[in-house]
């Protein structure tokens, strides 16, 4: 496309302008939004070709593909925003197969009336996250819905990646005797978002842990290609993730509460909200299950990476026909760590 010849006389007003229905109509206004916002921010040869699709060279081997719809509220929170989150979330889903993420696609659903300044902030944050992760956003789509029919902006991202030969990571591969590791302190994303929700503002220094984990995964897989399971404990937290794996693998688990890393800020926030950090969402943490003989090396590789500095071995996989995830409490008792039921709701007193 010849960028020297513009079809519009005035640049988009990123100070006071708002999204209107024409930005999703397929006409000139949409072309201008793509040109001045998305191309500017994401800036790569696939997008610049302005085709309906991106044509990609992919290496031989198995591909991993994942998609994730992001509807977070509020859109901006300490430590990130919906833009960075939408990049990290999908990269992480691809990476949890042990894959090296290659490309992302992004679809935006914008609400009429949404401030262009906020949209630009989000798109720039997204572009920064993609650049830092070295995973380009190569194709996309934009739609606009009438005011009141959206929540500002929803972003769906899809990613593909290639799985190294010999890596076979899946939720059904946990075996009795395997060790359970987590890459760091739990619950930061959920607490950071909750702390700035309308009606619930409380002073907290907790920041979202949102981060792309594929390089941490690459280091782990390099060290131990035989890792059995990787999963990022997002919604529902560690508890729900462990239950998913236990069911998929038809095993039980026994974790040790004293070894589960939780920061003081998260523990304090959960304490007064009546929440359990095991059920609070993470966006930059992973759970790894590997053979006992690999656990030491994997833990070493995790701790050597900045995103795994607080990694810990928290328990082991056991044989259990009921597939219970159980926990040795710090006090010395035992209890089930169940699935999250419904939304996590605070208790009354």
């Amino acid at each position, binding site marked *: 496309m010849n960028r020297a010849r513009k079809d519009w006389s005035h640049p988009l007003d990123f100070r006071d302008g708002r999204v209107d229905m024409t930005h999703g109509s397929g006409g000139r206004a949409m072309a201008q939004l793509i040109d001045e916002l998305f191309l500017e921010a994401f800036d790569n040869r696939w997008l610049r070709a302005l085709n309906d699709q991106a044509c990609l060279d992919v290496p031989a081997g198995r591909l991993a593909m994942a998609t994730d719809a992001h509807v977070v509220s509020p859109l901006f929170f300490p430590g990130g925003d919906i833009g960075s989150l939408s990049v990290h979330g999908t990269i992480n889903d691809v990476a949890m197969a042990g894959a090296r993420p290659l490309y992302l696609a992004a679809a935006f659903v914008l609400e009429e009336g949404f401030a262009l300044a906020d949209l630009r902030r989000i798109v720039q944050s997204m572009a920064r996250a993609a650049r830092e992760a070295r995973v380009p956003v190569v194709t996309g789509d934009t739609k606009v819905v009438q005011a009141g029919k959206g929540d500002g902006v929803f972003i769906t991202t899809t990613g593909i990646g290639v799985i190294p030969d010999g890596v076979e990571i899946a939720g059904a591969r946990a075996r009795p005797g395997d060790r359970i590791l987590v890459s760091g302190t739990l619950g930061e994303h959920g607490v950071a978002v909750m702390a700035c929700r309308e*009606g*619930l503002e409380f002073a907290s220094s907790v920041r979202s842990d949102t981060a792309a984990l594929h390089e941490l995964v690459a280091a782990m897989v390099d060290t131990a290609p035989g890792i059995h399971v990787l999963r990022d404990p997002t919604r529902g937290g560690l508890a729900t993730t462990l239950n998913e794996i236990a069911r998929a693998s038809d095993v039980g688990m026994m974790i040790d509460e*004293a070894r589960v890393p939780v920061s*003081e800020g998260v*523990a*304090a926030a959960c*304490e007064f*909200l009546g929440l*359990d950090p095991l059920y609070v969402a993470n966006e930059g943490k992973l759970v790894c299950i590997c053979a006992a003989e690999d656990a030491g090396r994997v833990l070493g590789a995790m701790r050597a990476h900045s995103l795994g500095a607080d990694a810990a071995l928290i328990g082991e996989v056991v044989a259990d026909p*009921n597939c*219970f995830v*159980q926990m040795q*409490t*710090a*006090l*010395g*008792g*035992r*209890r*089930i760590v*169940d699935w999250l*039921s*419904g*939304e996590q*709701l*605070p*208790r*009354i*007193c």
Partner: protein
Amino acid sequence: MKYIDEFRDAGSARGLAAAIARETDASREYRIMEFCGGHTHAISRYGIADLLPANIRLIHGPGCPVCVLPMGRIDSAIELALEHKVMLLVYGDCLRLPASAGMSLMQARARGADVRMVYSTQDALRFARDNPRREVVFFAIGFETTTPATAVAVLQAERDGLANFSVFCNHVLTPPAIEHILGSPSQAGDVALDGFIGPAHVSTVIGSRPYERFATDYGKPLVIAGFEPLDVMQAIRMLVAQLNEGRAEVENEFTRAVTRDGNLKAQRLCAQVFELREAFEWRGLGVLASSALRLNERYRGFDAEARFRLAARSAPDHKACECGAILRGSKRPSECRLFGTACTPERPMGSCMVSSEGACAAHYSYGRFRDAA
């Protein structure tokens, strides 16, 4: 965390567990009811039962406000939201409470009701201020712990002229429920309770004095305890000592927050705004006299039941639901045939399965591995 870690220390727990084991009389059983859902939750979450000798049996009491709320009251709340189209403000636990015909406030929300979760009565007042054209109703629920906050909200609403604000009052009282349990026929037989772990937060408001007649009139010891695991264990040790010595007294383990007279200012505020209902239905326990509060004549204008002319509703629980027997302490959750099959935290049929403080939900979520063993 300061002031919290001290009360969850594993070393102290081992020490207390050893002392309790040493001091219990192996020839007898100790049947102790923890009245409060907060204690039930702590016992389950920290696995306290594992640290106690087998002859100490902890029985979960009815002190969980959402558990004892009868379905008719939730039906009325749904009526407020769906038919009177009010903005209904609730504490989180209430959203999933089962109402009649498979409904709940969460289901009502999916059908267009404006139901919002709040953390405090101050949030509720803010919604009323921010939405002057809407009728805003606060779903007030809880034992004596949450009642003073509702009283303050009503006084503030009057002072600020918030005519669009009202309260759907479901505040209930602890002593009448304990009295009911002690007077029930099962207490005459072998399954009689030996003593109580008394409420923590409720007692910060009402003090320890209201429990004294349970010791004198019924001969049952009661130890008020905080909600931390070491508080609970210490209270158990104190109860064991009383029972071994044949004493029946009200003792206070939670001295860092509870006095004999309680919070007099809070009591005055409640007396200013509320009056006793002649009777109130409790889920599982039936209709108990003088066991709940409503806004008094002076503040009737803020009473949603009066403002929207709500008719009293009553809805029977499922026939097989054992919530009543469980709330009275005469059955365990696993003795209900709905437990874990038809009734789960995802689809609760009985109220004990709703709140994490409910006996069934606590056992399902934390302790059901014991049934499998």
